[in-house]
C-alpha cells in the first residue's frame, strides 16, 4: 500500500505550525469514510487488514496535527531534528526559576482560602506564558536555520513543562471538585 506518509500531505494541508482545525476535521472524516474498517467488512481478510492499518495511520496523523505540541515536534522531525525529550536540557535559568515559582503557587493554591479561585488565577498566568511561547515557537519553526531550529526545540521543551503543569492544575481541580 502506498498511503501518503507525510501527515500534512495526507490531509492536503500546507506544512506549517498553523493548521485550520475545521478543515483538518472535515478531511479526516472524508478520508475515514473510505478507509475505515467498517467500510470493508464484506471484503477479503487482506483488504480488511489493510483498512485497519490505513485507518490507524490516519488516526495517528490526526492526533499529531491536532495537538500543537505534537505538531511542532513532528515539524521538527520532518526538518531532521531529534525531538526525544530525554536528550534536551533547558539551560534558561530564568525559565527554570519561573517554573519553580509556579509549582510553589500550585502547592499554595491547595491550601488557599478558596482553592478553586487560586487555581483559576494560576491557570490564567500559565496560559499567558504559554501564548507567548507559542508565538515564538511559530516564528522559529518558520525558519530552517540550525540556530532557529535549536531555539524551537528549546521552546517546545518549555511548552511541554507548561503542559505538565496544566495537567496537574486540572488534576487538582478535579480532586477539589470531587470533595
Amino acid at each position, binding site marked *: *500500500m502506498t498511503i501518503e506518509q507525510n501527515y500534512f500531505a495526507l490531509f*492536503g494541508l*500546507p506544512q506549517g505550525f498553523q493548521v485550520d482545525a475545521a478543515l483538518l476535521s472535515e478531511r479526516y472524516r472524508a478520508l475515514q469514510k473510505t478507509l475505515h474498517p467498517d467500510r470493508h467488512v464484506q471484503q477479503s481478510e487482506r483488504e480488511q487488514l489493510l483498512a485497519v492499518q490505513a485507518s*490507524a495511520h490516519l488516526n495517528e496523523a490526526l492526533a499529531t496535527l491536532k495537538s500543537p505540541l505534537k505538531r511542532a515536534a513532528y515539524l521538527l522531525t520532518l526538518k531532521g531534528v531529534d525531538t526525544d525529550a530525554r536528550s534536551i536540557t533547558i539551560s534558561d535559568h530564568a525559565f527554570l526559576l519561573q517554573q519553580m515559582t509556579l509549582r510553589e503557587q500550585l502547592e499554595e493554591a491547595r491550601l488557599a482560602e478558596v482553592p478553586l479561585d487560586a487555581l483559576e488565577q494560576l491557570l490564567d498566568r500559565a496560559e499567558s506564558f504559554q501564548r507567548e511561547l507559542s508565538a515564538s515557537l511559530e516564528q522559529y519553526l518558520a525558519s530552517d536555520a540550525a540556530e532557529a531550529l535549536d531555539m524551537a526545540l528549546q521552546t517546545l521543551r518549555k511548552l511541554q513543562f507548561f503542559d505538565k503543569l496544566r495537567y496537574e492544575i486540572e488534576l487538582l481541580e478535579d480532586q477539589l*471538585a470531587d470533595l
Partner: protein
Amino acid sequence: MLLQIAEPGQSAKPHQHKLAVGIDLGTTNSLVATVRSGKADTLPDEVGQHLLPSVVRYLDNGELRVGSDARAQAADDPFNTIVSVKRLMGRGLEDVSRLGDQLPYEFTQGEGGMPYLKTVAGDKSPVQVSADILKVLAARGIESLGGELVGAVITVPAYFDEAQRQATKDAAKLAGINVLRLLSEPTAAAVAYGLDHAAEGTFAVYDLGGGTFDISILRLNRGVFEVLSTGGDSALGGDDFDHVVAQWVLQQIGHTELAQSEQRRLLDLARAAKETLTSQDQAEMSITLAGQAWQGVLTREQFDQLVESKIKQTLRACRRALKDAGVSTDEIAEVVMVGGSTRVPHVRTLVEGFFGSVPHSEIDPDRVVAIGAAIQADVLAGNKPDAEMLLLDVIPLSLGLETMGGLVEKVIDRNTPIPVARAQEFTTYKDGQTAMVIHVLQGERELVDDCRSLSRFELQGIPPMTAGNAKVRVTFQVDADGLLSVAARELGSGVESVVEVKPSYGLSDGEIARMIKDSFSNAQEDLDARTLREQQVDADRLVEALESALAADGERLLSVEDRTILNQGIEQLKRLRQGSDHKAIAKGVEVLSQASDEFAARRMDDGIRRALSGHSIDEI
C-alpha cells in the same frame, strides 16, 4: 464510494438482503433487534416479550432456563440461577471477591485466573453464561427472520476495558455468532437518535443501565458519528440503587445476616419499590426475613436521598468527559438518556441540572441501544452500500507498559480514536541482559498497582550487549472492536521476537475450543459438522467479496491474465466448497486469499486516491 461497474455477461448479483441483528447484552435485560423494510425494531419472543431478562438457571439434569422463567426462580434457587453476569465479565477472582456480598455465588478458580461459578450443572465461566443468553437471542433472530444470520453487532458499555470486551467477543464465539463489530452502547443509542432526528452537532449520551454507567460526548456531522470522549464506571448502575434500598430495609429491621435466598428476595423487593417510585410518591414494602415480618413505607424523598451519592458519582464522570472532549455544557445540543435506570426521576432531575437542558428519552431507553446496533449491523452486512453512516469510536482507558520502579508509561491515551497502532522503544538496563518483561496495563493512574494488569510476557533471546544498547520496540495495536494486541521486537541486532498477547482474564483458545466441544452431545461428529459449516461460510464470504470486487474494479485495476487467474481460483474454491473436506476448503480459502492480496492492495490505494482527489494540495 466505489462505483459498481457491471461487465457484460457478468452482471452484478441481484441485491440480496442479508440477515443481521443487533444485540444489546445487558446486565439486567438483553434484546435483539433487526432492520426490516428499512425500519429497525426489537424482536419479541413467542409470547410477545421483547426484553429477555439476563438470567440463566442451570438444572441438575443438564438443562437450562434463560429469561423470565429463570428470574422467577432466582430466590428459590439462588446458587444455580445466575443474574447480572455482565458484572463478572473479564474480571479476575480477586475483583469478584471485592464485589463481596453483592453476589450470592460460590466461585472456583479457572484457567488464567478466571472465576468459575459453581452450579449443579458443573462449573460455569461468566463467558459461558453470557453465551447461553446470546444463543437464545440469536435463535430468536433466526426464527423471526427465517434464515441464517451473516452476523451480529453486539454492544458493550463504552467504559468496558480490554478484558471485558474480549470476554464478550469470546461469549459470542462460544454461542456460534459471527461478530460484525463490538459497538459501544452510547454510540449505538446516538445512532438510533441521530438518524431519527436527522440531527447535527454535539451530543451527550447518558447511559445508566442495570450494572454499568457510560457517558459519551459525540459529534454528528453528515452521517459521521465521531466519539470525542467517553467516561463512566463499569461497576455502577441501577442494581446499586437496589442494594442501597435493601441496606435501608435491613437498617429498619435491625438485621444484617441473611441467607442467600432471603437476600435475593430482599433485592427483588427493593427493585419493586424503586420501580414504583418512578411514578408514585411512595412505595409500600413488606417482607418476612428470618421469620420476622416487616412492613414499611419508602417515600420518593427518602429514596432520592439514598441514591443521590450514586447519581453524583455519574455526574463527576460527565464533567471529566466534557473536559476530555474540550466541550462545555452549553455547547451540548442535546442530552440523550439511555438505560432503564434513567427512568428514576431523581436521575433525570440531576442530569437536567448538570447539563442545563431537558434530556431526551423519546425512544424507549431500554430498546434504543439494540435498535442502534441493528442499524449498524444492517450497514455492516452490506445491505446499504450507499449509506453515509460511519461510526468513529475511541478507547475508553489509557494503555501502557510497566517501567522501572512500578510506574506506568502510557503508550496510548484514553479517548484516542480507534483503530490505532503505536510503538514505543525501550532498552536494557543491565549489561548482558537477554530478556525483558513486558507488562501491559490499562488505566489512568501512575502506579502499576492502581491499574488493571492485562498481560505480562517475556521477550527472550535479546543478544547480550552493554546496558542501553539493545533496542526493543513494543507495538500496541487496537482494532475497530477496541481489542488490543501487543508485539515486542528487538531491533538493534536484527533479532526478532514477536509475541501476541491476550488479556490475563480471558479464555485461552484451547478453553474456547473445549467449551464448544462440550456443548455438543455427540461431541466429535457435531464439532466436525460445525467446523465444516464455518469453513463453508468463510469460503462463501471470500468468493462473494472477490466477485463483487472484480465486478467493481477488476477491469480497471487488473490485467486480463490476473483476472483469469482470480476467476479460476474462485471457480476452484466453489467446487471445493461443495465437498465435505473442511481442511481442503480451509486450504482453498488460504490459497485464494493469497492470490488476491495484490488486488486488495491496489483497491485500497485506489480508494485513498479517490478520497484525496477531492482536495489535492494544489487546490490550496
